[in-house]
């Protein structure tokens, strides 16, 4: 008779996905080698990508660096986002109380791109600073037509209409601003509408 020999049973290894585990680090010095390259403090630094003049100008402008103006001019010279650069140059000029230069840059921008939203909106601001409310009104209206989802055009248009004594339309514009800005603090605008309501009656 044959003898039955019991073999040791090995549960088969589970097949499937396997997690990657960190291997235990070998200490090279245990094997008589110097661990010259084992430096955990080494960092990989990423070098900034090369920006163009316009991008550089924007970041300088955002940090309030006066060098921004030079970079915007370089952007114009090198034909990089020319319309936007001209528009932002106008904002810088306006903040320096150089309204005429601001109008000049903005009109240059509109010559290249007649439906440039920011140029129309900003021209509205410059003209209202110059108390030219009729022209300010035209540019705010155009800005509102180009970007009807932008609330501030309606607010500023409302203020210009108050100056032009067009109270009914002013109320409509300011109310529209309120409806477009659900997250903003519109208490001043609402107060203004209440005051205008009493004047208009």
């Amino acid at each position, binding site marked *: 008779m044959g003898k039955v020999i019991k073999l040791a049973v090995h549960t088969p290894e589970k097949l499937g996905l396997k997690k990657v585990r960190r291997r235990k680090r070998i200490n090279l010095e245990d094997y008589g080698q110097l661990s010259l390259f084992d430096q955990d403090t080494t960092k990989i630094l990423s070098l900034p990508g090369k920006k163009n003049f*316009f991008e550089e100008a*924007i970041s300088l402008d955002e940090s309030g660096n006066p060098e921004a103006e030079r970079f915007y001019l370089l952007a114009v010279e090198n034909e990089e986002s020319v*319309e936007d650069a001209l528009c932002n140059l*106008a904002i810088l000029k306006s903040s320096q109380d150089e309204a005429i230069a601001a109008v000049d840059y903005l009109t240059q921008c509109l010559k290249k791109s007649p439906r440039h939203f*920011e140029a129309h909106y*900003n021209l509205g601001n410059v003209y209202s600073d110059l108390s030219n409310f009729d022209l300010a009104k035209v540019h705010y209206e155009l800005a509102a037509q180009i970007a009807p989802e932008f609330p*501030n055009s309606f607010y*500023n248009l409302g*203020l210009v209409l108050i100056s032009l004594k067009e109270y009914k339309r002013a109320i409509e514009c300011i109310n529209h601003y309120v409806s477009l800005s659900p997250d903003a603090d519109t208490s001043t605008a609402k107060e203004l509408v209440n005051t205008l309501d009493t004047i208009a009656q």
Partner: protein
Amino acid sequence: MSEDKNPHLIDHFERLKAILPEVYLPVKNDPKYTNDTMFSLLKNSLGVIEAVYLQSPESFSNTQLDVYSNIISQMEEMGIEYKGNKEILNKAANQLIMQAKKPMEKAGLVSRADLGRKTG
């Protein structure tokens, strides 16, 4: 008593002062007199300012318009009746309204689609 006055009349005037004190009150200490004089001076000064404005309206800065309208409103608060120049007052009021406007918008910062979410 000053020496240049007629010594014979001194007694006479002293007696008059005693009889009619209100006539001989020192005018400079009268508050009504001071107020009237001050108002008249102020009115004349404002008249000069208005004349300068009418000659060259563009020479008036926004600050000057603001100062002028403040003077008129303070006078009104004090109960002094003075209408002021309508054109200057209108300009100052418009300027005050436009000071509340939303700021300029930089181009190239956000996409047009984000504009709806942007409020000042």
